[in-house]
């Protein structure tokens, strides 16, 4: 009520009273924000800077200096840490996990949005809450479960769900589904219901309504979620650390932990390794920034 009255008054009076803030305040604001922004970028820029300098040079001249430019750290880091292999592992895990998450989540979201059954609220709560639980709280039973469930040798050389890509994919899907169900069901609820009436008249089955009516309309939300989920699953550290054993099978983010020993005495190598690991997420960030932000904020607020 109050909002409505305020709105009317506000729109009427607004053009006349919009005042420009005094210039000096703006200058201070820009100085402050500029300083904060530079401060925020600094750790990343420092990592890039360090990674491009030779260890010998920084060892003699200290890090607060300039010079000793080289690209060798990247080559050494790539070779020693076998980044090629680990990047590939990340792809094996991230791509199927993201596709499966989006598919399964959109199925549930469709049913929740399309039909107004009472259980839908419980279902939505069950999925959304699962995404927010602390992973460590599930570790003990899950660890045991994974070491008990056998897999045929052609699926995983560990012959168990433990230490297999499948196990990691499944656990990531189970965890990420909730967030996607929440976002997608909100998105689908906003679609006009008449669409389905029309589809029903045409005799379209539920599956066709889902796949040919709803899904194409959800492309923006799916794109945003895909961007976000790729980043999250690529960045996932905990499950891979505890549910994998074979060093060769670790995805990039968790393989970082193994690099520690090898790189310990050489910060220039550490920084080159860090930059290499960050590159995929930075590429996503700069190319798909809009999608990324949309995905994050879709979850928090509608719109």
């Amino acid at each position, binding site marked *: 009520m109050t909002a409505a009255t*305020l*709105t009317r008054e*506000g*729109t009427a*009076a607004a053009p006349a009273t*919009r*005042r420009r803030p005094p210039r000096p305040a703006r200058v201070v*604001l820009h100085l*402050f*924000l500029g300083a*904060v922004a*530079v401060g*925020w*970028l600094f*750790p*990343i820029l420092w990592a890039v800077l360090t990674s491009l300098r030779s260890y010998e040079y920084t060892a003699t001249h*200290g*890090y607060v200096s300039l010079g000793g430019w080289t690209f060798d750290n990247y080559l050494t880091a790539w070779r020693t840490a076998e980044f090629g292999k680990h990047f590939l592992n990340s792809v094996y895990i991230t791509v199927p996990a993201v596709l499966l998450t989006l598919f*399964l989540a959109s*199925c*549930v979201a469709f049913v929740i949005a399309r039909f107004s059954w*009472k*259980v839908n609220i419980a279902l*939505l*709560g*069950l999925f*959304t809450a699962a995404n*927010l*639980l*602390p992973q*460590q*709280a*599930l*570790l*003990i*039973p899950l660890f045991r479960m994974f070491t008990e469930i056998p897999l045929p040798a052609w699926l995983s050389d560990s012959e168990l769900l433990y230490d297999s890509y499948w196990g990691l994919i*499944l656990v990531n899907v*189970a965890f990420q*589904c*909730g967030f996607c*169900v929440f976002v997608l069901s909100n998105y689908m609820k906003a679609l006009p219901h008449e669409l389905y*009436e029309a589809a*029903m008249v045409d005799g379209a*089955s539920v*599956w066709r309504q889902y796949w040919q009516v709803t899904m194409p309309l959800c492309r923006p939300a799916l794109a945003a979620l895909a961007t976000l989920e790729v*980043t999250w699953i690529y*960045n*996932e550290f905990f499950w891979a650390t505890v549910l994998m054993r074979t060093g060769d099978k670790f995805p990039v*983010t968790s393989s*970082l932990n193994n690099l520690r020993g090898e790189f310990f005495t050489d*910060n220039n190598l*550490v*920084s080159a390794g860090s930059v290499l690991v960050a590159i995929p*997420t930075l590429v996503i960030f700069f190319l798909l920034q809009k999608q990324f*932000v949309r995905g*994050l904020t879709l979850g*928090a*607020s*509608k*719109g």
Partner: protein
Amino acid sequence: MSDLPLIQADRAVAPPAATTTRGRGRRLRLLSRTDRVVITLMVLVPLILVVGLVWLPALATVLLSGTNWDGIGPLGEIDWVGLKNYDDVVNIYPPFVPAIQNNLLWLAALFVVATPFGMFLAVLLDKELRGSRFYQTALYLPVVLSLALIGFVWQLIYSRDQGLLNALLGGETDWYGDPHVNIWAVLVAAGWRHVGYIMLLYLAGLKGVDPSLREAAAVDGSSEASTFFRVVFPVLRPINIIVLVVTVIESLRAFDLVWVINKGRNGLELISALVTANVVGEASRIGFGSALATIMLVVSLVFITLYLATVMREDKR
């Protein structure tokens, strides 16, 4: 099997309006057998996955915390020990108290410093500023990095012999290693990421505020600060709650950063790291682990409920 009760449940719902109910009732009866099988599968497959890999393990954790299972032996040999594990964790497990302290410190640091700072930056960036996009990008760049990676990035600043901080200050502090300072060093890195995240969430919330609200307040002669606190902040109640929950859950789930540094020991104890160390570490004590895990679960469920209540209420509007 499970599709039948679903449909009956719908019939029990009070009709919001006569016309739509009639339409809906007809629609449901129109669902063919295949449609019902498809709907069941669409819900059941993801449900089995989430219940099997998230909710059942959560329940099992709670149950295990009351037993003396060693994690290796057959499940048949489990004995019920009541609250003994909790008693042991509190009384004879030295890292417990530091872990609780660190988790609370983590929460306090995010809640008192990082979250308000992120909100403050969002309010500043919400004005129509030239270059606002650059500032935003810089601030949430850390959000795309994993916390594990952030541990490595900050090592370049904190390292004792090769770090920037000691080079500038001329000190000899091992910022990650010294148990007196390392939690603070880690909190700076965690806050660095958290500020950007909160800024992003809050900025989205602010964009959704009806601009005429602010204009009306300005007409009434309200200053910018009091407009924010009296008009904008109350309107943003849902996003405020979400930010609160995100802050609590993030500080409860904090793990990656301390695990890459030293596996959560020597000043960096966290509940999450203790649970993990008790399962995959050398000295595995499932009893301690599951009691600690249950504590995490209970705390998180309180805030998850708050979160769900908020977002679902939003839904109904």
